[in-house]
């Protein structure tokens, strides 16, 4: 079956897990994409879970793909995870040439992809916003701050690694659950281990913004903690997460984890409600692919008016408070 360079090979997913051992949401999306691509390619979708105790995540992942390889690797706990996982995945992939390897595009997914790229000497197509199958993955990505969309492939039918952005695929389980094969780690880990010597808990964001379907975000115009209370209230009533511009983060009103834009996160929610955000390019690149964009802004000439669906010109506190009541009545 496997022809030149793994043609017909499976579409592999290197899965990420949450702190409690469950499967990361981004991996359910990537696994769904792998299954879709495998159907187009006439091959199978296979998942890899590398964790000290991979059982729970592996069983969950088997809901999305035909086969899961679960590697119980004690070193995956207590050490930085990605390089350990990538080495175990690379060992498996060396004996089963893939059609493609998919990871998430978050920090762990990038670390796995970069490490796999060097271990397997393969190319990486990054930040996929859509992937089709055309003899190999055909990957769409947004570049130059969203002013251009490119489609890229690997050369000469080679296989490679693709990192996939959150929320570009809706996770959907397969009709029938796949199988889980347990595999013991084989051989030494070649790359140096990096110890985790401490874990510091910080006021946790209730919902990671990359995964939120609705984001209510505040900028400089929100003015401070009191303003962010309104942003939070609106997010609560819409069932969404709170985001922010760099100016709001730099002012100390909200943690960096919530920052959207060039130096923060790139998000693609169905709804982006922007309060007191002008829509400067540095912020726009992080949210312009949102489904519906609505701004409330005092300045009618703010750049957000160039790419939002709706801009309400006015005082964000006045409009926001009425909106909050309106949404509470309607929902």
């Amino acid at each position, binding site marked *: 079956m496997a022809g030149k360079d793994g043609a017909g090979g499976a579409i592999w997913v290197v899965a990420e897990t949450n702190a409690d051992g469950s499967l990361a949401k981004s991996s359910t999306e990537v696994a769904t994409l792998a299954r879709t691509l495998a159907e187009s390619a006439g091959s199978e979708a296979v998942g890899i879970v590398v964790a000290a105790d991979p059982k729970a995540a592996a069983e969950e992942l088997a809901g999305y793909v035909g086969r899961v390889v679960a590697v119980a690797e004690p070193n995956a706990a207590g050490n930085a995870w990605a390089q350990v996982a990538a080495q175990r995945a690379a060992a498996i992939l060396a004996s089963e040439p893939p059609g493609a390897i998919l990871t998430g595009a978050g920090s762990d997914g*990038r670390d796995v992809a970069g490490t796999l790229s060097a271990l397997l000497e393969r190319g990486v197509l990054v930040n996929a916003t859509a992937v089709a199958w055309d003899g190999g993955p055909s990957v769409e990505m947004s570049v130059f701050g969203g002013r251009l969309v490119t*489609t890229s492939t690997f050369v000469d039918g080679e296989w490679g690694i693709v990192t996939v952005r959150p929320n570009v695929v809706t996770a959907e389980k397969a009709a029938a659950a796949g199988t889980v094969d347990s595999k013991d780690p084989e051989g030494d880990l070649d*790359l140096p281990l990096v110890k985790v010597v401490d874990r510091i808990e910080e006021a946790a964001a209730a919902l990671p913004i990359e995964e939120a379907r609705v984001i209510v975000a505040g900028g400089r115009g929100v003015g401070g903690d009191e303003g962010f209370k309104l942003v939070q209230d609106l997010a609560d009533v819409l069932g969404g997460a709170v985001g922010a511009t760099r100016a709001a983060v730099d002012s100390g009103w909200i943690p960096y984890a919530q920052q959207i834009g060039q130096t923060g996160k790139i998000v693609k929610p169905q709804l982006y409600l922007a309060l007191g955000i002008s829509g400067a390019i540095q912020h726009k690149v992080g949210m312009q692919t949102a489904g519906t964009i609505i701004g409330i802004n005092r300045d009618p000439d703010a750049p957000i008016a160039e790419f939002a669906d709706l801009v309400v010109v006015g005082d964000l506190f006045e409009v926001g408070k009425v909106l909050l009541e309106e949404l509470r009545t309607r929902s």
Partner: protein
Amino acid sequence: MTLRIVVLTKPVPDPAAAAERLGPDGRLDRAASPAVINGNDEYTLEAALKLADAQDAEVTLLSMAPATGVETMRKGLAMGAHRGVLVTDPALAGSDGWSTVQVLAAALRGMEYDLVLAGFDTSDGVGGVVGAGVATLLKLPYLSSAAKIEPDVDAGTVRVRRISPTGFDVLEAPMPALIVGTQLLGEPRYPSLKGIMAARSKEVVTKSLADLELDAAGVGGDAARTKVTDTEKPPARSATQVVRGTPDEGAKAIADLLASRRLI
């Protein structure tokens, strides 16, 4: 003991200028696009300079870029870096990430360092995978998503606060190590007039593929593992509806749009 830090700095098209030019292969024509230091690389450079403010340290910039990369590098030297190394070779035009990884790793093999710092990603490629690849080829400890970098020169180790979904993980590894930093490392400084003057006489060493003893067949545009098959402008969004009026009217317009799109 001097702490030797190499900061990877990539010249990227100026995002503010929005004047990127593409070559016939759909890849960026770097020589024709006005360049600045990648924004995320300035955070790691700032972290390196702060370490150099506090202790005996030497900061070297390392770039792979067209020959014009020297000019871009001057800003980093003006901020306070001590010297620069520019890998430049016509054969490197059109390099993909894997090619970049091999070239940077080869350049680092010829340098002495305790820490290599890389930015979270670049504003042009936005891949964020090169740092991990370089660490892998060089078998260096790899510490990513750093919010804080604390080397202990006497112990020969480095501690990093890595951003985690619930806060921070504190990582520790022996040096030399490769660290990928984030914006939390702190706002980059502006070059002072004195710094700008001093930068003019700082040394930038230029290296070709031959200097690195790298075979041009394995790197550069001809060896790229990925290719661009199509480029297009993203579909324009529908016209913006602008509502000016009372807060009630504004709020109602929002709620109506949400309802019509089944978002509430």
